[in-house]
């Protein structure tokens, strides 16, 4: 008697098929209203040579099968509502459904962006209120909500810096970023037409002051910094650094990706930063959506304000005690101009504002406390186990909301790389930390638990890491060939790059 043993999980057995491959001629989901107007031949309306001859090969498929297709493939994703997702630098905190509910109200969801401000007062007031809250949190008085995400905010910040200097008749060419900075920082620098110059990191994980001083010339437009930085540690020398950069007439840009560590505890403005971006999809609970949408508002100081993007939301006090009114200000002569269409990712603003109302000022401060508590607790738990030996923390000090481990000992002593550990974690039902970033840490694992994780999940994660290292002590192959239970196993990325197949072939 030979009973079938499981060689594949059901999902593994269910091979990927795209919706285009499920198409069958003549099938459809949509039923459209008839035009209700004269059925004139298209050629009468548009010159024939401007008309399309063959409609695009979109799928032909019924509604039930569309729903099944996307429901089924959705289960091939790991998601935050399923389990622990300590993806460092990304602040994978809970996404409240309340925010989805209020964003879906037709007064928000079906409001046309070109609606006359007179008839969009609720939306403009919401944006204004969000601006006020962000200004208070960042410690900088002026806010533009326009940037669509963090990197967009970075670009904005650099263009603001350029405009600021140009306004003073200056042209600068360099922007300093620490070697620990996120890839978007140097990429934004280049896109903004500057040259990116690295500054070194000291033994405490902060910026090497002497190196900064050495590179801080009159040609330096800006210093871009994350604080706490991507090592999860707070750079205590920030005030001195600000003096140095301001001393040579440069601006200080704050990459707000790590704001979740300090909300209500410390403010970039008070640290001396001129420009800050905030990732609404990190600190303020906008769902990450598989890679967006996001929001990257910027807060700036008085001297930068004149250059903010157009349009800006403005508030007019009501004449003698009447309600204030809100409007869009396009007449900003020194503005760098638009960064995108219309007023920004309003739907994201609604969610983030609802989140702020839910937590309130104290709640935000407490969220940061718990985020820092969770990170420190998880690190302490890890240290006690095999991670202490094989995955030591890169800079040995108390972290803030996240910390970076180095997989170098594991690689040398066990022959398993950070990648292998990450892949093996998948079999244990965890999303791995951010890996191989920041670059200056060998085999880096960047762990950010966030405040919304209960302690039990941190314990389970620490235990899983320990189990994986224990396995590796006896047989490194287990990790090296992991994962085993995921919908697919390790994928051939080289093949994907060599002969890129980037769309479904149709025939």
């Amino acid at each position, binding site marked *: 008697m030979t009973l079938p043993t499981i060689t594949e999980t059901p999902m593994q057995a269910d091979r990927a098929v795209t919706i285009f491959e499920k198409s069958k001629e003549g099938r459809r989901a949509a039923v459209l209203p008839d035009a209700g107007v004269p059925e004139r031949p298209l050629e009468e309306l548009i010159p024939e040579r401007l008309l399309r001859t063959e409609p695009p090969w979109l799928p032909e498929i019924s509604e039930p099968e569309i729903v099944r297709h996307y429901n089924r493939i959705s289960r091939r994703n790991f998601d935050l509502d399923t389990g622990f997702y300590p993806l460092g630098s990304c602040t994978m905190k809970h996404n409240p459904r309340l925010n989805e509910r209020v964003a879906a109200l037709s007064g928000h969801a079906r409001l046309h962006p070109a609606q006359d401000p007179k008839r969009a007062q609720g939306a403009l007031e919401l944006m204004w209120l969000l601006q006020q809250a962000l200004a208070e949190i960042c410690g900088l008085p002026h806010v533009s909500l326009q940037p669509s995400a963090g990197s967009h905010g970075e670009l904005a910040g650099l263009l603001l810096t350029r405009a600021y200097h140009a306004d003073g008749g200056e042209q600068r060419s360099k922007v300093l970023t620490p070697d620990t900075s996120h890839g978007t920082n140097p990429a934004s620098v280049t896109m903004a037409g500057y040259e990116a110059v690295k500054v070194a990191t000291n033994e405490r994980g902060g910026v090497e002051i002497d190196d900064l001083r050495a590179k801080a010339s009159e040609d330096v437009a800006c210093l871009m910094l994350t604080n706490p930085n991507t090592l999860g540690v707070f750079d205590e020398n920030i005030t001195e650094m600000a003096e140095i950069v301001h001393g040579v007439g440069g601006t200080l840009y704050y990459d707000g990706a790590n704001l979740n560590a300090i909300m209500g505890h410390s403010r970039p403005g008070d640290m001396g930063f001129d420009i800050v971006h905030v990732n609404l999809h990190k600190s303020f609970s906008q769902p990450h959506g598989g890679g967006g949408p996001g929001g990257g508002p910027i807060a700036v100081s008085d001297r930068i304000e004149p250059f903010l993007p157009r349009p800006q939301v403005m508030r007019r006090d009501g004449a003698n005690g009447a309600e204030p009114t809100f409007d869009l200000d396009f007449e900003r002569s020194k503005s760098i101009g638009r960064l995108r269409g219309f007023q920004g990712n309003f739907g994201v603003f609604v969610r983030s504002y609802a989140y*702020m109302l839910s937590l309130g000022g104290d709640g935000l401060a407490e969220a940061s406390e718990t985020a820092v508590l969770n990170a420190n607790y998880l690190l302490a738990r890890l240290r006690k186990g095999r991670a202490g030996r094989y995955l030591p923390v890169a800079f040995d000090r108390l972290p803030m909301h996240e910390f970076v481990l180095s997989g170098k000992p594991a690689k040398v002593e066990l022959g398993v790389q950070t990648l292998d550990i990450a892949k093996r974690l998948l079999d244990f039902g965890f999303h791995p930390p951010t890996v191989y970033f920041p670059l200056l840490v060998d085999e880096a694992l960047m762990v950010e638990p966030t405040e919304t994780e209960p302690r039990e999940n941190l314990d389970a994660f620490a235990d899983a890491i320990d189990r994986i290292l224990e396995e590796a002590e006896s047989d490194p192959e287990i990790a090296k060939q992991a994962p085993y239970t995921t919908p697919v196993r390790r994928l051939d990325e080289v093949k994907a790059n060599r002969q890129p197949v980037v769309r479904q072939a149709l025939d």
Partner: protein
Amino acid sequence: MTRYTSATDADRAEMLAEIGVGSVDELFEQIPEPLRLGRPLELADGLGENEVFGRLAALAERNADAEREICFLGAGMYDHYVPAIVDAITQRSEFLTPYTPYQPEISQGGLQVMFEFQTAMSELTALPVSSAGLYEGPSTVASAGYLAIGATGRSRFVVSRGVHPHSRETLATYAAGYGAELVEVGIEDGLTDAAALADAVDGETAAVFLQSPNFLGAVEDVEALGAAAKEHGALLIVACDPMTLGVLKPPGECGADVAVGEGQPLGNRLDFGGPSFGFFCATEEHIRRMPGRIAGETVDADERRGFVLTLQTREQHIRREKATHNICTAQALNALGGVIHLAWLGRQGYRELGELLLRRTAYARERLGAVGGVELLHEAPVAREFALRLDAPVAEVLDRCAERGIAAGYPLGHEYPEYEDGLLVAITERRSKEQIDQLAETLEETVQQLATSDQRRVPA
């Protein structure tokens, strides 16, 4: 214990003990004392869910949305019907809450969606390569400029005035950074001035930017206009409306090197302007210069079909200052909405919708053009939007219409002073013949009341 967290006082005590510190404050001591805020944030206290709902509902009440008004506003975003399955699927935790698919083994759902999205946009634009979701329309135009500079080594842009004002302004904003000069070519009778364009393009030109239908709704002869670009080795960058490509000749068949645009009409609600998605398609040769994420097909260790983020050496997290773009978080969820909407329409429905728009728009244009005191701003062919001239102050007419529950259209004067009496009217499948007639009657009435002159439109 705050909202959404779990740490009770007991938890805190045990956790602090494990860490070996006496209080949470100690953990914040690495922040120099002078830099600590030392006071509560000046924000209101937290509210219960019902109260928050109440506050947001009250704000929403004060917006005249397309549920309450009959909306003829367009200008780049349109009140199309978003099928219910789009919300049902995009709201699934599995799509809503993960991040960028850095770990492909547990992100096959999102990666396959990207792959399907790329296929769909490639089909629409008739260009082989597609990036998976940039921010939105105008910034995508600016990103195309960045690609053109890299591809041609030139830095001069020739831009039609028919390109969306937001796109032109965004392009200028970016250009101030990466350094490019903009030359604008005017509009004649609703269409890009072909002669002026030909003159403007030269050997220094990195790219020619066109939009079709253009901002005034007119369908441009992209192929003819693009000839100048070809001739001088400049890239032809075409912004297009993804809801019109079932009927209009796609950019890829008009010689476009890059097609970009605003994805909102596909499965995304208006949301007062965002979030939506931008699309970016190009010819093969530009594949390694594309901005944003691209999913590619491959196999796993057991030869199972799978998908990964590919050509990542283009991207900031690998190449840093040498990256082809700085974009990281984009609009993946909005792109999913787009691909679901397209699957729901299907090959036939997508075409039929395009035809519906053409016919209703033709009807509306004739009907409104025949109204006393109203005339066509141009006679060029249009697809889903058209421009009128009003013999009355546009702002006041719009106010009167709003009082009657109609958002009559987009006033052109702000961005086109030369059309200070211009009104842009957009049509979607949600705008019925009855609503169009209602708009006509309302305009008839209001324009008469507010007429600035007695000269009436002489029937052509």
